[in-house]
């Protein structure tokens, strides 16, 4: 079965979706050692089925596996790499904590981490493309404690090697869209930080024959933007809605010309953006006359995992309806 991605305003997702079915329980069972990795990924397929069904019902063109196996975007990988020790509790807000992973030895890839779920999602996607999504080296570095390397360049390049191996395995399996998530980058919007990641991305994406995407959200995107535009990626997937499209004039100022994953719905509010609101947001971008509609991918600001399922699905559905309307206008 094949599915043709629309030429104008394709719709996509950033990655995560609310945990469906028994995904949360399975994650806990795996952590407690009650089920092994293989059984875990087999059983989580039922949740991936549900996610993909929601995406297709909502009319999304390029999908993800909904990250149903991942409790957290850093911890998931830390639990599967050699070199990490058990994490320790640190506070995120109020009296809520997460077990921040600790790097205790040189990092090595122990085996495939995300390709199994990707393959399954792709097999049930009705011919639609599914993004291969992995947490980027800078975010892994920043959101882990390091007791081994003490040299950020060395550490980020070891992450880059691991991520490249994973990406190559995904490419071999047929992935055509590869997305590296770097939410930590915009929280430290300095030139030297941007350059640190640039070297790692060059290594990861060298010779990769797929659409290369970097997702960055929140923080001070406008400050980091001038230092990242020459990253070796085809597409920047960025948050706009939550910051009231503050970034738009900066795209113009810095002459943005690559593909844009345009975050048009806020993942932190239960209020569902209307189709008209989304269309209006796209029109604001198009008025800048920076990139054509074939370079604009419509999606949420970030992963949808914190939203109730019905709200997440409705937001996606409205993105899809807005895209349909815009294609008529610009086609």
């Amino acid at each position, binding site marked *: 079965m094949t599915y043709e991605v629309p030429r104008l305003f394709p719709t996509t997702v950033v990655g995560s979706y609310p945990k469906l079915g028994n995904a949360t329980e399975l994650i806990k069972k795996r952590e407690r050692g009650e089920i092994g990795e293989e059984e875990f990924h087999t059983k989580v397929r039922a949740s991936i089925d549900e996610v993909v069904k929601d995406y297709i019902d909502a009319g999304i063109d390029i999908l993800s596996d909904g990250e149903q196996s991942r409790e957290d975007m850093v911890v998931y990988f830390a639990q599967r790499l050699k070199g990490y020790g058990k994490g320790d*509790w640190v*506070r*995120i*807000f109020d*009296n809520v904590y997460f077990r921040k992973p600790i790097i205790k030895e040189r990092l090595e890839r122990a085996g495939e981490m995300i390709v199994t779920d990707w393959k399954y999602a792709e097999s049930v996607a009705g011919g639609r493309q599914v993004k291969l999504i992995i947490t980027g080296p800078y975010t892994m570095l920043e959101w882990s404690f390091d*007791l081994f390397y*003490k040299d950020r360049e060395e550490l980020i390049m070891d992450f880059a090697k691991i991520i490249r191996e994973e990406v190559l395995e995904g490419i071999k399996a047929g992935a055509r869209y590869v997305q590296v998530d770097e939410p930590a980058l915009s*929280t*430290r919007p300095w030139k030297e930080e941007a350059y640190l990641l640039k070297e790692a991305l060059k290594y990861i994406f060298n010779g990769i024959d797929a659409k290369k995407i970097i997702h960055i959200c929140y923080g001070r995107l406008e400050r980091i933007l001038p230092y990242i535009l020459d990253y070796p990626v085809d597409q920047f997937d960025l948050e706009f809605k939550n910051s009231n499209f503050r970034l738009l004039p900066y795209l113009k100022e810095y002459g943005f010309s690559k593909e844009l994953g345009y975050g048009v719905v806020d993942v932190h509010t239960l209020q569902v953006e209307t189709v008209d609101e989304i269309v209006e947001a796209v029109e604001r971008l198009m008025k800048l006359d920076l990139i054509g509609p074939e370079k604009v991918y419509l999606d949420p600001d970030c992963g949808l995992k914190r939203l109730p399922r019905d709200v997440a699905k409705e937001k996606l559905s409205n993105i899809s309806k807005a895209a349909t309307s815009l294609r008529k206008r610009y086609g």
Partner: protein
Amino acid sequence: MLWGSVLGGYPRSGYVRHEMRDAERGDSAFLFHEAAIALASASVIGTQVASGMRYATDGMIDFHDIFRPFARSWRNVSIDGLIRYFDNNFFYRIPVFNGEPDPARFVWASRVKAFKSISSPIGMKVVIPGPLSFLLMGKNESGLKERELGYSIAKAISLEAKAAEKAGAAVMQIDEPILSDQEINDDLGDLEVELLSIISSSIRLPTILSIYFDVPRKEIYEKIINAKVDYISLDVADSPRRAMELINAKGFGDKRPVLGLIDARRIHDDNYDKIKDMARSVAKNHEEVGITTTTWFDTIPYSFAIRKTQLLGIYLERLGNDLKLEVINPITEVR
């Protein structure tokens, strides 16, 4: 001479985390909850005393973020949703000003009274969020202009400071992490100097202006070193090159320096030789230098916060020996 002090709060131990969770669920008796916090506070005070600090904080174990207890204790202030706290994977709740803030009760006075005898012979350090951070990191729904609200916040902080002084605090630290934001403009820098003056004029206690997560822009720092405070505390270890460039270029004016040299956001042991070089370069121009942690210990596990406190004490003593400087440690004066 040198002295040491932990900059701010401590993380919660496993016991305290669970106790607070139980309290939130209504599964803990009020007195048990208060006792658990008091014991945890006494414990981190003891760690600081034993590590040779000049001043001790009570650990602010029950502070959910730097603003929360004040937002809860002041009239006309409420709290809103979560927002990222600088470049940390940590979020604070936005204080919302619905009118002029007016302390209904004081956060620090009773804490100082409770803990000053436990910390003895070390003085209690009171830590208060600065007026500019409160103003710019909060939401203004008061109907007041930004400047007017800034003045109101400074007055409320002054009342808090006076009460803490009366209760027996030894030093007042005003935390202004927002000053490390590179987008703070000159007008806000001028406003900050005025607001700090309101607070420091209301008390006789020595005052420390504490800036962390980065150093301010040079133009802002030039204004800040004229503020009416006794000490300026800078986060040096987070971005050593930027911090030392600023210090070498602008110095501390007539203020006494406090250097954040122990990294409070990372868990590895800090490099003593680098710390020594930076401390030496500042100490040659100043008779008194404070050594501290870069920021609060909020984002590292409890056990590492205790270790870093001990490390601060060990390094302080080594610095005294290596730089041939007297180290102020109130315990050594007990006879």
